[in-house]
């Protein structure tokens, strides 16, 4: 069970995240939504233990993650927002390195890497350097790296970024399958339709604060809007998006 208790983080005097609390049980998928600058990345950094909260704590199975960060990270799979990888390592070498950093047993490591590379259609490219990979291929490598040690908690930050339609569909189904196997998944995304489809619970952030929280269906019902897009626009956007679009066209055409 992953729990955030009153998480707050300030950079100097600027608050990035204020009093965020949630409890994520095994099998649940939490969608974490918010516009740019709303504090999503800061929350993710605190959840993976890279940032210490100014206030509050992150608990895993009832214990503060900072009491034994190594043990917590052993149970954690993480997909960052950008697939920043070492461009001169090959796909297989990179996965091998991550597996060793996670101290995976040798036999299991080889078997898992091979199987996942094949399933993610990267086996023929395993000896190609990551710098030559397309964005989607790099994203798949990151996903394999996050999944290969069978983590109990998955923190996914825009995992579908750059993926083709087939791969994106696979990942959507994968998230559901992992959740059915009791994995705890924290899903940070901008793609509302995916969040709507795969997430059992939802948190919507605005300016570092939670403005809506609960099971996805409940949040929709509370706002009285049938689609998540409608909910999001109603809660988060201060401007009329169609009006802004029209104004942009006016500027472009008139100048």
């Amino acid at each position, binding site marked *: 069970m992953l729990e955030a208790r009153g998480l707050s983080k300030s950079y100097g005097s600027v608050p990035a995240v204020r009093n965020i609390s949630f409890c994520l049980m095994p099998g649940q998928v939490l969608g974490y939504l918010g516009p740019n600058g709303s504090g999503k*990345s800061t929350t*993710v*950094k605190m959840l*993976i*233990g*890279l940032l210490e909260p100014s206030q509050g704590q992150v608990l895993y199975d009832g214990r503060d993650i900072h009491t034994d*960060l*190594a043990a917590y*990270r052993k149970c*954690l799979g*993480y997909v*960052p*927002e*950008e697939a*920043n*990888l*070492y*461009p*001169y*390592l*090959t796909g297989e*070498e990179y996965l*091998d*390195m*991550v*597996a*060793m*950093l*996670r*101290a*995976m047993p040798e036999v299991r490591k080889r078997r898992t890497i091979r199987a996942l590379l094949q399933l993610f259609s990267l086996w023929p490219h395993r*000896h190609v*350097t990551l*710098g*030559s990979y397309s964005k989607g291929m790099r994203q798949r490598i990151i996903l394999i*790296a996050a999944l290969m040690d069978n983590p109990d908690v998955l923190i996914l930050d825009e995992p579908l970024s750059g993926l083709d339609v087939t791969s994106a569909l696979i990942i959507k189904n994968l998230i559901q399958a992992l959740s059915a196997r009791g994995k705890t998944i924290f899903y940070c995304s901008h793609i509302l339709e995916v969040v709507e489809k795969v997430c059992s619970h939802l948190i919507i952030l605005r300016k570092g604060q939670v403005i809506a929280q609960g099971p996805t269906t409940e949040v929709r019902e509370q706002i009285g809007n049938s689609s998540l897009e409608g909910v999001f626009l109603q809660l988060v956007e201060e401007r009329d998006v169609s009006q802004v679009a029209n104004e942009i066209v006016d500027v472009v055409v008139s100048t």
Partner: protein
Amino acid sequence: MRRATKVLRRRWRTFKRTPLGGLLRLFVGRMFHGGAEAGSDSLGMGVGVLLILLAMPGLLASLLMLEEYGSLIRYMRGDGVFDPFVATLPDEYFFIVLSMFVTGVATLWRWDSLFLDRRDYMNLVPLPVSLGNIFWANFCAIVALAGCFTIVVNAVSVILFPAAVVGSQDSILLLLRFAAGHAVAVLMASTFSFWFVFAAAGILLAVLPLAMFRRISLVARFAIAIVLLAQVGSVFTVSRFVLDPSHYRSTLFPPFSFLGLARAVWGRGGEPLVADMTKASFASLAGVIVVALVAYALSFRKAFIRIPETPDAGPLPRAKVSFSLPASLFAAFLTPPQRACYKFVAKTLLRSEEHLQVLMGFMAAGAVAAANVLTSPHGFTSILTGNTPSLEFLSVPLILSYCLVIGIRFAFEMPVDLRANWVFRISLEHRWTEAREVSRRVLLVFSLSWLVPACFLLTLLFWGWVAALLHATIVILCTIALVELSLFKFRKIPFTCVYPPFKSHSGVIALLYLFGFFVFTTYIAQMEYWALLSPWRAIWFVPLFLAVVFGLRAHRKQMLDMDKELVFEDLPATGL
């Protein structure tokens, strides 16, 4: 005057707004700041620091000349009156070589930024800008860079060296004549060096397929660096060359010919040799510039315009060099995270172009220093004869070991793709204190794995088993001690932290490196020579080695835990 300045300023402002002006500014900026993307973590020093670094050798050399030619010091030494135009010939040649070396190295450093690349193509060609504008703007930027390097490298010596030599004499005309000769020679030598390196790059780019060019680029740079370093070695033989008519032909080639240029301005232009040297210097400079221009035009046509037809090769292909056997031997007793870091570090050193360049630079310096020792006045044959290994022979592995260890240690501080280091940050805790062990293994594998067998076999060939065993053991012990010293406060995973800022004591560190080189390659070689005269004396190396290793270990034990923890300096914009 003020009006002319105003007009010039207005014209410059108008020019800046034209496409050519905008492109020129873009390319000049790229050449000074490097071609790396924003946020990529290449050695991003500011223009100011770069200019200071370029001017520093000239400044140091000029200050040394004050010691040699200063009137007070000469008076205290009891030296009499001297003819500055004859007495300073070796030093003038030294300045010529120094300016060529510094300019050449700076150009090699900017090798990748000189030519237009795929990013330029993708950003500029779709815009309504003609290819001609792009061609000329980049060319003007190259000329500006050449001018800047030439002026900055020589600015200090043009003023200080003449002041040191003839500053104490009353004649201002003498000072001006001396300064003019020196300035013409060093400026032309610098210009020659810049265009020589540029022409080499241009020819390779024009002749070779793009993929092959990228592959061979590093080797070419290494070879040019060796040539530049070898020129520095020629300083010691200059008097033999210049004053001896039997070396007439050699004096017509750079860098010797530029000395003729200085002598011509100093009033010796009537001498046939000086006249020929002057002509040769002009011819060589003109020749290299013409070749560079042709190569630039051809490379633009062949490499830049055809970029859409060539696939994006991505980063350099994997290195073919395999360290698998020694690597697995040394990695055998490491924990899995240590092994992961070890492989990462070894592969980065072999595949990251920037790091390989640094490593090659140090190795080139080591190779030249070793070659210099082997071509000492005693002669190469005498080095390999005798009952025991000669001092020169013993110092060669120490020179190579020092340059390699210090080079790798220096490269460790250079970050690589910092945004990708999140994988270490989320996998390893701050309490993980084994990073030093990883770095130690890498340093030892890269140095000892080839140096020790080579030492052992060569010594065995000429001096037998005992000398071979002792020599190999001493090289191992000294290298281990050096590695321990170099990693004394190191607590990072190499390449994963931001580049350390240039600190106030960086000059002291550079001096320490030089001092270390002197001690390691001279005193230890002398000790070893003394030890090998009677093998039992070699036992002295053991307590010395133990004192260094255990002394460092004891000191480290006393350090606070927080000073031993793994560090990852935070970046303002990480990928997380």
